[in-house]
């Protein structure tokens, strides 16, 4: 790991200001991706701005039909939260399925979505549930937030503050994990929201994406039968030692069918 200087701001505005002043700064949330990346010298910021001391960045709350998870809330806390289990059990299951207990004890929702790993779980929850990301300067809908491989709509110095999830009528997350890393080879979130069905897929492509054809079919008839013959194109999907693009494409339909079957 290359050396860096370390700052621990206590307010959001200080954190943003430090980042603005830094030539090559990086925010540190839970560190479950960034610290390994620093060790591998895949990242070498001159200044690390640790968000661990920033006030008011953790917690889960519900107001009307929206569940809010603040950015530095850890996966372990989302997984066990009775508020999350009551409002959106699928979100609790997503958090519980991430990595291992020690990763869940440190990793945060804000860090996960800002990193936008193509195989991360939370992006499927955000896109599948039609969440809204609140930053220190604006709000961004989940359809616009994830822009590509490790890509988000966040500007430099912009920080995720919270994620607002509209509470769906029903939702479930079906994941086919890599048995070693627990990252999703394919993970599918199917949600019946107040006015639409959403199907979001992580792990399969460079970035989380929706399968509109499935959404339309499920809108007409919410049954595994209505999507069982659907073949998702393997063009542009991820291919690595764990799974070919064709296999990932096949798994999307399998996991989506299982998700729908579990919901009815």
């Amino acid at each position, binding site marked *: 790991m290359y050396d860096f200087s370390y700052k621990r701001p206590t307010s959001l505005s200080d954190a943003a200001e430090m980042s603005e002043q830094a030539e090559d700064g990086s925010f540190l949330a839970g560190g479950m991706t960034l610290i390994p990346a620093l060790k591998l010298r895949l990242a070498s910021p001159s200044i690390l701005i640790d968000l661990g001391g920033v006030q008011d960045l953790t917690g889960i709350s519900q107001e009307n039909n929206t569940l809010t998870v603040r950015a530095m809330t850890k996966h372990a806390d989302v997984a066990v939260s009775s508020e999350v289990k009551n409002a959106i059990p699928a979100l609790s299951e997503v958090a519980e399925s991430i990595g*291992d207990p*020690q990763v869940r004890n440190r990793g945060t929702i804000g860090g996960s979505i800002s990193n936008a790993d193509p195989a991360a779980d939370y992006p499927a929850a955000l896109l599948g549930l039609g969440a809204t990301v609140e930053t220190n300067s604006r709000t961004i809908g989940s359809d616009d937030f994830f822009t590509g491989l490790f890509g988000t709509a966040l500007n430099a110095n912009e920080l995720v503050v919270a994620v607002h999830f509209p509470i769906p009528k029903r939702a479930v997350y079906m994941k086919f994990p890599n048995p070693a890393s*627990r990252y999703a080879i394919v993970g599918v979130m199917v949600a019946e929201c107040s006015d639409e069905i959403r199907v979001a897929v992580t792990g399969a492509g460079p970035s989380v994406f929706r399968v509109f054809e499935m959404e339309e079919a499920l809108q007409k008839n919410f049954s595994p039968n209505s999507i069982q013959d659907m073949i998702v194109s393997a063009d542009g999907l991820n291919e690595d030692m764990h799974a070919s693009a064709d296999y990932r494409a096949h798994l999307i339909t399998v996991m989506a069918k299982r998700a729908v079957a579990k919901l009815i």
Partner: protein
Amino acid sequence: MIPVTLTLNGKVVSADIEPRTLLVQLIRDHFHLTGTHVGCDTSQCGACVVHVDGVSVKSCTMLAVQVDGAKVQTIESLADKERLHPMQQAFKDHHGLQCGFCTPGIIMSALNLIAKNPNPSESDIRDWLEGNLCRCTGYHNIVKAISAGAEAMKS
């Protein structure tokens, strides 16, 4: 260099460290508590698990500066002089270790499980051990030891 002050196994200690120092390096190299091991150094194997503010973390994937003001507990905090902690005793009784390299991390991880769930089922234990690798035992005796340790901790 940055000063850090933490409560390590019940004692307030301080050190001046480089920001890039990992927590496991602080524990082993600075405070010479070598029960916490470095296995993979990639946050997979769990040999370096310690508790920070009561929850288990992989100390190879945390910066030492992040524990400023925190309470850190390592495997050395468990035994009462010669008397092993019930979880340590259970590992001994149930042959839960062979080479022993992974054992401190697994015990610290198991204690976090018991704190959350004092009556874990076999599958609870196996799920929880997702973050710990043992290359000797095949896990069966580790699972038995954790189950027995959980029972013993009730008395």
